[in-house]
């Protein structure tokens, strides 16, 4: 049953895109697709996804190791602080980066002005886009790598040590290969996020493919060309998924013995401590302190001149309600997909699992319009109601939870389930008593990830929410349309605090898991 809904969820947008693309004349299509500019922009997006993923991995792997396995001063604090940038909407983050490092009139330029610096090198274009996307999406990889690191059986490393490997060799030869599924799962989310994001490329003036699709909807009212572009993006996503498939291996990542309950010895950093600390401070400063600081500054400036603090209570409640529901429902649907793909690997289950990622890689407006089309014409009684909005979130964000559940499940030894079967438990009992408790970390991070992305979602919310259903994202959008900085800042701060709260909640759950 659940799998059916998932299958429908996945195929609807695709069917829509194909239908719309076929609406255009063949000749026009060929001309559009082979246009040098189209290909150039497609290449831009592919390069962007590759660079952002690499940069995020270079940040996330050392950071995960530092916060889980070393005696880094204030380790628990950094554990929390380095995850929180996930809560910063990328458009808010990019905006604050421009305010801080833009070529003219930015914070940094004003600081340097006495030294005769009139204009800074431009942040716009690829460098700024990569910077902003990396800073606000690396936590995807961090979360996934960290839970992978916690799931590794310590006896493997102990064995390596006993066999005379240096800590460094142990890391590269034992730990890193074990982290492969987590790296791949997290990296996939980062890459797809880089493809789908619209806010950052448009603020940073980078010609990404989503920008082209949005421009087509916005300026030419040409739905056929826009759908054709979106289909090209689907092609690119398919290539990335194929690469990911090749990067996955068939190796087993679970341990034979019982892994739980053993403590890992923390590595001593020695003099490296300061370098590590500097790294953490710089990262958190850029990705967390800067956006919060600048938003608070805008709010105060706005409140002192004219604006009054807007009443955000109903927007906060709506945002939290809809996002929580989306997170719980989507994770519920993600479970069967992940379990089928891991425990009953076949071509079909693999395809269903892979396909869930397509919704995440497409720009929100394409998905939103496909649901507008199906909703208005075939399900009028459901159209523009809360369940419809939740369904849209499901289509958009399902893979985040599929990915995390899948990586958790890979670390569970199937023999545990088999033994339970031998002891006379039925499928349902096994699921409830063995599998679900063991993949709990994956389920929880899936819920949190979906919550955090759903709360920031804009295009589908504008078109599909019940009329008058205001969320924080729509409130911020309205305020920016009005050029009311203070109100936008107030909305952003409310969103940041809601997201911080839920991220903290997630991290606390993680802690419980370790103790329990």
């Amino acid at each position, binding site marked *: 049953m659940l799998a059916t809904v998932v299958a429908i969820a996945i195929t609807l947008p695709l069917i829509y895109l194909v239908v719309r693309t076929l609406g255009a004349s063949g000749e026009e299509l060929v001309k559009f697709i082979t246009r040098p*500019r189209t290909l150039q922009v497609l290449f831009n997006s592919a390069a962007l996804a590759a660079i952002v993923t690499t940069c995020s991995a270079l940040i996330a792997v050392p950071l995960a190791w530092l916060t889980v396995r070393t005696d880094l001063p204030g380790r628990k604090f950094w554990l929390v602080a380095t995850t929180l940038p996930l809560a910063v909407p990328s458009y808010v983050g990019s905006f604050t980066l421009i305010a801080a490092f833009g070529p003219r009139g930015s914070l940094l330029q004003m600081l340097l002005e006495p030294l005769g610096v009139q204009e800074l090198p431009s942040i716009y274009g690829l460098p700024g886009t990569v910077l902003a996307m990396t800073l606000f999406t690396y936590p995807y990889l961090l979360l996934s790598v960290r839970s992978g690191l916690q799931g590794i059986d310590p006896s493997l490393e102990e064995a390596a040590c006993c066999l005379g490997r240096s800590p460094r060799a142990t890391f590269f030869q034992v730990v890193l290969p074990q982290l492969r599924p987590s790296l791949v799962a997290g990296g996939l989310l980062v890459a797809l996020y880089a493809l789908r994001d619209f806010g950052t490329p448009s603020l940073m003036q980078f010609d990404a493919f989503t920008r082209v699709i949005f*421009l087509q*909807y*916005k*300026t*030419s*009212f*040409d*739905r056929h060309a826009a759908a054709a572009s979106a289909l090209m993006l689907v092609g690119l996503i398919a290539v990335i998924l194929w690469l990911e498939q090749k990067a996955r291996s068939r190796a087993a990542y679970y341990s034979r013995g019982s892994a739980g309950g053993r403590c890992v010895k923390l590595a001593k950093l020695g003099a490296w401590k300061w370098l590590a600390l500097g790294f953490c401070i710089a990262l958190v400063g850029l990705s967390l302190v800067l956006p919060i600081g600048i938003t608070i500054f805008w709010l105060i400036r706005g409140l002192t*001149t*004219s604006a009054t603090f807007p009443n955000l209570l109903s927007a906060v409640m709506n945002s939290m*309600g809809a996002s*929580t*529901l989306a997170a*719980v429902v989507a994770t*519920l649907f993600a479970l069967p997909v992940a379990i089928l793909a891991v425990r009953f690997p076949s071509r079909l289950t693999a395809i269903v699992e892979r396909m869930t990622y397509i919704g995440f890689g497409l720009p929100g*407006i394409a998905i*939103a*319009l496909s649901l*507008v*089309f199906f909703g*208005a*014409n075939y399900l*009028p*009684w459901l*159209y*523009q*109601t*809360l*369940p419809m909005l*939740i369904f849209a979130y499901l289509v958009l964000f399902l893979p985040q939870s599929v990915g995390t559940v899948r990586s958790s499940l890979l670390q569970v030894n199937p023999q545990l389930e088999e033994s339970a079967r031998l002891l006379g438990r039925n499928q349902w009992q096994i699921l*409830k*008593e063995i599998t*679900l*408790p063991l993949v709990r970390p994956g389920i929880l991070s899936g819920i949190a990830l979906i919550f955090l992305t759903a709360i920031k979602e804009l*295009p589908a919310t*504008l*078109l599909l929410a*019940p*009329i*008058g*259903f205001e969320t924080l994202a*729509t409130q911020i959008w*309205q305020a920016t*349309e*009005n*050029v*009311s900085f203070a109100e936008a800042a107030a909305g952003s701060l409310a969103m940041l605090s809601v997201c911080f709260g839920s991220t903290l909640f997630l991290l606390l759950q993680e802690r419980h898991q370790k103790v329990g």
Partner: protein
Amino acid sequence: MKRRKILSLLGLATVSGSLAIACSNGNNTNTSAAPPTNSGSSAKELVVYSGRNEKLIGPLIQQFEKETGVKVKVRYGDTAELAAALQEEGKNSPADLFFGQDAGALGAVQKAGLAAPLPASLLNQVDERFRSPAGNWVGISGRARTADYNTKLVKPADLPNSVFGFTDPKWKGKIGWAPTNGSFQSFVTALRVSQGEEKAKQWLAGIKANNVKTYGNNVQILDALSKGEIAVGFINHYYLEKSKQENPQIPVAHHYFNDVGSIINVAGIAILNSAKQPETAQKFVEFMLSQEGQEYFATKTFEYPLTKGVPTASKLKSLEEIKSPKVDLSDLNDLQGTLKLLEETGVL
């Protein structure tokens, strides 16, 4: 074992609890938000898709509700995205009216065959420059493109009467524009439609050769003008009017052209073919065109009222005096060609 059971029960309870809340929520919104079915059709209720901001038109809509007793539900969104959504919904759209930010989007909805013809009594209240020649949408308020200038840096007598005057090298380094802005693109489309591709291309290349400074939007242009970063900026007229509210001393003034440089674009309304309450929808348009509605736009949003006989805000040049050319504003939906031109000339 036992604890786990309790925990899982707890989890189940939370999930079903939140689902129950969701369902009740869903039902509430469902009954109130769904297009009026059998029970709703007796009560008068309108659904408006509005590309105009709630801050701008919300108070006016409340006024309409108060005076007529008609309940209005408004879906606020981006003008172009709403136009795309209307096309997807087709005849099953729950909306009665579309309130678009610019004529291009209204033109797209009209060309998709979604807009119903409006009665002449409504159309005739507005000058024919500002409504659809086919009669499927009507302008409600207007905005002029102007060249705003810094009064400390430029003498009014030096300003050209034609927008082409600014391609003269004497303006080098003094001009600002915002080529990603929708109103700017509408102006370029009007330039193409009225003067032809070649002249439009010449203008873009000429301004670019004058080292024009590029800004993200109109607000930034005005900010740069007041600081004297640039002497002249291509902009919509009402930004300066708004800013004068807070800062009457701002050293910036309007300059109008005698040609397409001062094209007047409109925000307007179409009644959709899918409207369940076409008569009530007409009442809504009538209200927007009434003295009360038009004065609201003149005094609160500093736009041009379009109903004949309603006075413009005192300090603005009147619509009759602005000699913008006759362009079918519906044709401004051909932004595809404009984008192509902007890309070719390297402006975007």
